[in-house]
């Protein structure tokens, strides 16, 4: 067994050496990345029992179950009323951890309930696609999280705000088309800046040159007040 395990690890090392490269080998049972955002929607839809667009209006813990109550704005697949209650195993909700927040608006892809009546979003957070308003008031899906399901190389950019949205109507057509074998790619649209944080990938501080004593200078940083540790007193 130890010999077998060593070979497994070595295989991993070999694979690691090729990190960043797209692998052509895809086992049949592997969760291969999706080819596109449209394919990601179809993938989620194909495994969902219920799909709708709505908003979380209440979250309540009841024994070993956490009930997430949605107001259903747009039914897409499966049976829903004006509200839908997702019953999740409370083990997924340790105290202080919130998988959803009240007010969260999304197009959700949910597994059909188990015999125990429990369910969850397909592929976790990937099956909860945020819905927001476009600049013209059109309901948009923020597909930036969904886009992480798509095959890409390390450092390939995720969709920017300019292409980070698709209309809910477009998404519905993609999802409903998936059930009838129709594959189409939704049209990308910009998402409004109100839904995004400033892209704060830092610009690195100015070049610093160490002096003889290891102290450098820089014009980029602001020097805050400092309380040094014991090294100052040693």
């Amino acid at each position, binding site marked *: 067994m130890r010999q077998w395990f060593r070979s497994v690890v070595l295989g991993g090392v070999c694979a690691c050496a090729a990190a960043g490269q797209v692998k052509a080998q895809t086992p049949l049972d*592997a969760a291969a990345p999706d080819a596109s955002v449209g394919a990601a929607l179809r993938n989620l839809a194909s495994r969902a029992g219920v799909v709708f667009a709505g*908003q979380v209006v209440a979250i309540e813990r009841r*024994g070993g179950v956490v009930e997430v109550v949605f107001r259903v704005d747009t039914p897409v697949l499966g049976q829903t009323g004006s509200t839908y209650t997702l019953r999740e195993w409370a083990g997924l909700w*340790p105290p202080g951890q919130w998988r959803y927040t009240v007010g969260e608006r999304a197009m959700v892809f949910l597994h059909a309930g188990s015999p125990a009546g429990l369910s969850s979003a397909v592929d976790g957070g990937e099956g909860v696609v945020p819905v927001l308003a476009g600049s013209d008031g059109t309901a948009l899906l923020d597909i930036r999280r969904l886009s992480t399901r798509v095959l890409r190389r390390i450092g390939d950019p*995720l969709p920017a705000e300019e292409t980070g949205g698709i209309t809910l109507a477009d998404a519905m057509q993609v999802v409903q088309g998936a059930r009838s074998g129709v594959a189409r790619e939704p049209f990308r649209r910009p998402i409004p800046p109100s839904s995004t944080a400033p892209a*704060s990938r830092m610009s690195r501080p100015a070049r610093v040159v160490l002096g003889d004593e290891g102290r450098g200078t820089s014009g980029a940083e602001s020097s805050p007040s400092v309380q040094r*540790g014991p090294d100052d007193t040693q």
Partner: protein
Amino acid sequence: MTLSSRRCAAWWGCGRVIGAALLLAVAVVLGGLTPRAWAGGPRFVTGTTFWWAQSGQPMPFYTSSPTYYTDPGDLNPNVTHAQADALVAAAAATWNVPMSSLMLTQGGALNEHVSSANTYFDGTQMVFPADVSASNAPNKPIAVIYDTDGSVIDTLMGQGASSPSGCRQTGAVESVDQFGEDGKIDHALIILNGRCVGSNPQQLLQMQYLVERAFGRVLGISWSQLNDNIFTGASPVPAGEIDYWPVMHPIDVLCSSYSYQCMTNPFQLRPDDISALSFLYPVTSSNLTPGKVLTAQNATYLAGDVLFPTGQGMAWTNIVVIRQLQGHASLEPWEIASGVTGFQYQQNGGNPVTGPEPDSANAGTPWTPAESRFTIQRVPNDYVENLFMVTEAINPLYVGEYAVGPYQRPPAAPSGSQRVMVDWSAVAGSGAYYVQTMDDAASSCSPGADGSQTQPAAADPTGWWTGLLCSTGHTSWWSAAVKAGRSWTVEVTALDESGAATMRKAQPVIGVWHSGDSGLPTVASQAVPMNTIAAGVTQLRIPAATAAGTYTLAVADQFGAGRPDFAYKARLLYADSVFPSRVSSAGGLILIAGEGFRQGNTVKVNGITATVIGWTANQIVARTPTMAAAGATAGFGVDVTVTDPATGGWTTISSGLTYTRAGPNVVRLVSAPTALVTGVTASTALGVRVYQTDGTTPVVSANVRMGVTAGSASLGSCGGGTSCVLQTDATGLAQTKVMGVAAGAVTLAATELTGGASVQVNLTDTDTQRSLVIQNGPVYVAAGATLSWTLQALAMDQGSGAAGVPVAWTAGQGLTLGTGANTTTDANGGTAMAVGANQLGAGSPTVTACAWTTVCSSWTVNAVDASRWQVAATTGAGQSVRLGTDFLPVTLQVSDNAGHPLQGAPVTVYQTVDAWEGGCAEAGRCPASPVLATQQTTAITDANGKVTITPLQVAGIPQTVNIVAVTGTTGFVSLSLVRTP
């Protein structure tokens, strides 16, 4: 060790902070004490409502040597139990590093193979075999289940959840399901999905990677944002950076079917992972064992605060550290470790709308200094290096199950621009504490006078106002009066620093109480923030009540937070009344009075769209549909609704309008002015009479809108305004006096509101009664003169001096005005202006004064060229006196050739005194007279063009004085004065 005085002054807890930092620093360096853990990276922190003694404490496992117990079954037909155990052991071993006291090892096996056969839901709880359940925590703290057929995962997470298509998410499912009274993790589960592995080694390695990350989670380590450009691609990824992408990054990059292949060395912790791990499980001198090293060895500890200018902590900011190693001229091209601000602070403080947070959301401490705090336990440091701590926003994708730190809410965007803190020459084994104020962040924490629950402030009468939720826990309280039968809407829009709607700052919730009520909202509440599709807008619709009432409104943050960048705009959309309340069956104009209206609002009568004619925040004028179109019945009230399509908000006046069966009324002009004069009230009023459809029966108390629809005029019955609604008298007459306001065309209209019948009168306003006169006459001066004048102007309005009228002055070439170019008339309508000329050239420049913009007067200075000057004696010429009598002065006057006296002309005078010789002989030469004296002088003519000459005289001698005066190029005069014996 000192802390800035500014910092101390701002913090009531300064002393505690210093003490804690000092204690920690000493403990870390000396390794002699167990440090009070103040570092970043925990997934859980203690709250206040449980039995935990101290809130805000990170929560590790209850032991630094937790053991896990594996399922005795096979993982699946291809992976035996032993193989699976080896896989799990390899994943666990990743976390056993020298710098942390953690020793995660296998303790043995579970008592039974776990499957859906022995795992079920009892209607309340999931029931696992006894030794797997949390109640067995002291014996088996971590249970590892081999879910061979995926049935356990399907039971827990829904049908199809174990599908191989979802293995990246459900390949290894973890659950921390019990905490101890000491604020530590007691028990956890990890479920391996047997459907996710086969004989392919890559699948096994992928499973190992998933289990590795699952172990990190159950050990209490949070996701971490570091070198996030690897995930976002927002900037190029330099060589080697991926070696520092933490294992606990929130979301994988999928460069292949196996995400572990998208990392280098996926089974080796990064410095950031070790920092988080060693924070929860530190090695100190008290627990140092063989194979372990002090956490502080070859490392630097960093902590600090990020603050608003107000001194309040700025939570939800990511801090990344970049090193500059000794002897290197540049920074490392990657980030080495990270922390987040406010990770110890209360994650949910509750609010008055929904009440206290539930126990399940109670995490963190209410101790306010924790709101700003970040700590980074361990930055690798072999000797000495510079450390750059950089602030950045948290990626908005990192929410919910991917949240960094112990955050519950969507992190608010940081305020202000990015900052860099530098720990110069940080020595290995040291610690440092920094305070960074974001100087350009939102800088006010004044929420204004928004009242309290018992004394709410009155909402703005326009229905629109702004507010600020600051500081922590602040709630804005407002009051509003609403009539019976009116539904209404309250909207709150979260704003960012620029005033734009945002979803990344406050999460507003709204509550409504009857005035004086307490407790949770007694009328309505909106606990769901941003529940409309409009960006950042939370909306609460309140149904109509049967009685008028005064209500208290509350605006709060969903999580009970509050800070300087949590601004909001509130709106009360409320239709109060319809005027008139009755219209004819043909429809008519109505005025809806209320609050919170804006452009784009629509009006419906009985559900049928009315045409909006105009709007203000407090009024909407609309033309109703006909009774037939509205589907209304004469004599029965119908609802009038104002809707805002942008937000979906609406307000309705129940039965606010009634149609009458009669046809439209008729309006006839009775009288009207024939013309208007500005400032004068016309003697003839604008009068109309309203008749019923028959054209003969006057309508009493009909509503007639009188208005100035073009030009400028004021209506006396409208209080001097330009529009109002009047009611007809007993004869059906409505009338108003009209006063002209400005010259030009004026159109007046009178419209009967129920049917819309209207008459229109076109007039012209003339402005003949205003005048402005510069009272100084034109002046003539000598070219080249330097002079000054004071002009007096008089403004008259309707025959009287116009007081307080602004007068604008302008001067032509060569002329200058006194201080300023504008004056204002005094009580008598007078005003003055100083005008100067310096060596004025020939010409006729003017000064113009204008009042009321167009009423002007001019004054001219005629500067006459020297070639046109003439001079003559006006007095004193031809004098002949006896000896003993003096000559009188001689006056000369300079004028132009048209006779205008010239001011400022220089006149040169030559005088010669000759002895008097008597008359000439009848024959022969005249006697020669000796010259007694001569003189040359120069004088400047006065405002009348005159100069006065004193004759040159020699006392006691008969004499003749000859005077010659010269001016300009041709002006000349000579005269003689005689004194005889």
